[in-house]
């Protein structure tokens, strides 16, 4: 049972990790904890629902379409609520993200109702048994896509000009501007990227956990916790934090007490942060 519990933990942990990537990215580019991250997943999930289930567009076409439209919506959101606050104190931006999260969540509820929608499985939800361990194909896909994205993101942020510009803009906006970096454009691009990533997470979990207006709340919070655990300035850390949280939650339910599942997982997280405040993979602050 132990291996099975770990495998299930890795599956949900990959989802947390994908969410955490968005937090890490926003932290690195905007220096803000973006509490509307979960809503990006919700937007992604509803986009694919609309394109694939309502308009019957084949999945291979609907998938990029949903990511693109979510990213576009991300651009509009940052232009409306985040960009005007770039010059302000960080707490203003934090509050703007909280407000945006509440707004998007309730907007979705008004439009689509509070009931969840089913979404057909794309990668297969019938388990395959390997030895005496059951593996669900779609979980493998979620984990694989998660890791691929981490590698791509790392390359993008450390090897490409645009990626370096993004990080420079976050570290010191004025100096970056003096060096010829178009700061606002660069920040907008990060936002679009982060929203696209969040949408990807939402898309991947839609067949597993359904599509609902408030879905961003719980996975967004877990994603935030994972990012802090892994280190907000590290995309690899975000993924590691997610996997660790997922596995801890499952082992807590399996071996200690399901009534205290979240409490145990978060206690361990607090313990780790006492000894490594910058997170597991984060640089010393």
């Amino acid at each position, binding site marked *: 049972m132990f291996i*099975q519990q770990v495998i*299930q933990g890795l599956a949900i942990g990959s989802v947390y990790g994908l969410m955490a990537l968005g937090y890490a990215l926003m932290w690195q580019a905007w220096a803000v904890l973006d509490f509307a991250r979960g809503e990006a997943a919700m937007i992604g999930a509803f986009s694919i629902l609309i394109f694939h289930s309502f308009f019957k567009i084949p999945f291979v076409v609907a998938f990029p379409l949903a990511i693109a439209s979510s990213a576009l919506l991300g651009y509009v959101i940052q232009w409306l609520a985040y960009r005007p606050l770039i010059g302000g104190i960080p707490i203003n931006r934090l509050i703007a993200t909280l407000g945006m999260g509440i707004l998007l969540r309730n907007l979705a509820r008004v439009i689509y109702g509070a009931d969840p929608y089913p979404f057909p499985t794309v990668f297969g939800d019938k*388990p395959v048994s390997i030895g005496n361990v059951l593996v669900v194909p779609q979980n493998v896909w979620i984990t694989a896509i998660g890791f691929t994205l981490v590698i791509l993101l790392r390359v993008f942020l450390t090897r490409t000009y645009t990626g370096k510009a993004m990080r420079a803009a976050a570290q010191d906006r004025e100096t970056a501007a003096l060096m010829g970096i178009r700061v606002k454009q660069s920040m907008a691009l990060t936002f679009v990227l982060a929203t696209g990533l969040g949408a990807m997470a939402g898309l991947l979990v839609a067949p597993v956990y359904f599509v609902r207006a*408030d879905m961003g709340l719980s996975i967004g919070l877990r994603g935030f916790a994972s990012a802090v655990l892994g280190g907000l300035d590290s995309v690899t850390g975000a993924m590691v934090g997610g996997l660790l949280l*997922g596995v801890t939650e499952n082992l807590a339910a*399996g071996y200690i*007490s399901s009534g205290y599942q*979240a409490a145990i997982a978060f206690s361990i997280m607090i313990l780790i942060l006492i000894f490594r405040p910058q997170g597991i993979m984060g640089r010393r602050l």
Partner: protein
Amino acid sequence: MGRLGKVVAAALVLVLVASFAAGCSSSKKDPIKIGIVAPLSGGAAMVGDTLVKGVALAIKQINAAGGIHGREVIYIAEDDEQIPAKSVSAVNKLVYNDKVDAVIGTVNSSATLANMEVTRKAGVPQITPISSNPKITKLGNEWIFRLQASDEHQARAIVDYAINELKLTKPAVIYQSDDYGTGGKDVIVERLKELNVNPVAVEAFAPDAQDMTGQLLKIKNAGADGLFMWTMYAQAALIAKQARQMGLNVQLMGGGGLTNPKLVELAGDAAYGLLNTQTFFPDKKGASPEAAAFIDAYEKEYGMLPDSNAAMSYDSMMILAKAMEAAGPSLDKKKVRDAIAATKDYRGVTGVITIDEYGDASREILIIRVKVGGGYEVVWPKR
């Protein structure tokens, strides 16, 4: 919802005007006034709507049969938006401005807990068709009655069926860790103990949890042969799907919160065969003669099938009417209250109803099963 609210309101005005006009022409006596408090706008407006429909149909039939003590019955409906404070104002208006003879409502348990203080102080009998919080009838308020089976009755019924009929010996329990889930779990565990059965696992999950595989693996490992779940249909769909994926193929069972077409829509074939309790089910074939007649009349009147809420509301009005007949033409409110409290073996559309010492309807509870391909069938009681 706003538009629906307006349509409902307009319909109510029409009904009121019509019944007033009818009252003027046909009878010199004042009509008997029933106050309805329900959410007619906001998120629960659909539920409030079926509540009014159920009561209105009962009143129509009562009037067609000559009214109560020869007097016509009318109703006045007030919207509470399922907000406790608004609910109190609404009942204040009904009791003190409209001077209603009795109140029926409301949906939301918190709102009922708030507004029932108004009827208690004024000494006006009140029946809530579907608020299910056990506290409502346990606060010593003798003016409030409830028709919905409380979660306590429902949980006991499904346990009895599982142990006595299905002969399960190693059941497990999974519940959401809030008032609703914990309350249900406590009753299940207690009832199992009374029947000398030990649950092999009792597992919790957070109300917003998406991944229950940790708990389900533990339950599978404990060798469970059945799983009680006390949660709502969306989480139940997740549990059903994930149990199937983890190879936990056991009988799934639960309470009234699971009855919803969404369950099968979300969980697909993993939900087939799931059993849960229900007090009313719009299935003419398996229905009692009373229920079948009601389903027909409701469908004819509104062009849709009644839900359990409409049926509870219909029975509320019928029990009230019977009590008013029994209380005598003066319609003394204390006598009406006593007559409601004395309700015994009333054959309503939601089953045979007896009001217990707390004001709760103790009644027969149905067990329904999700059919292969979707839809429900009644498996208990056997007819």
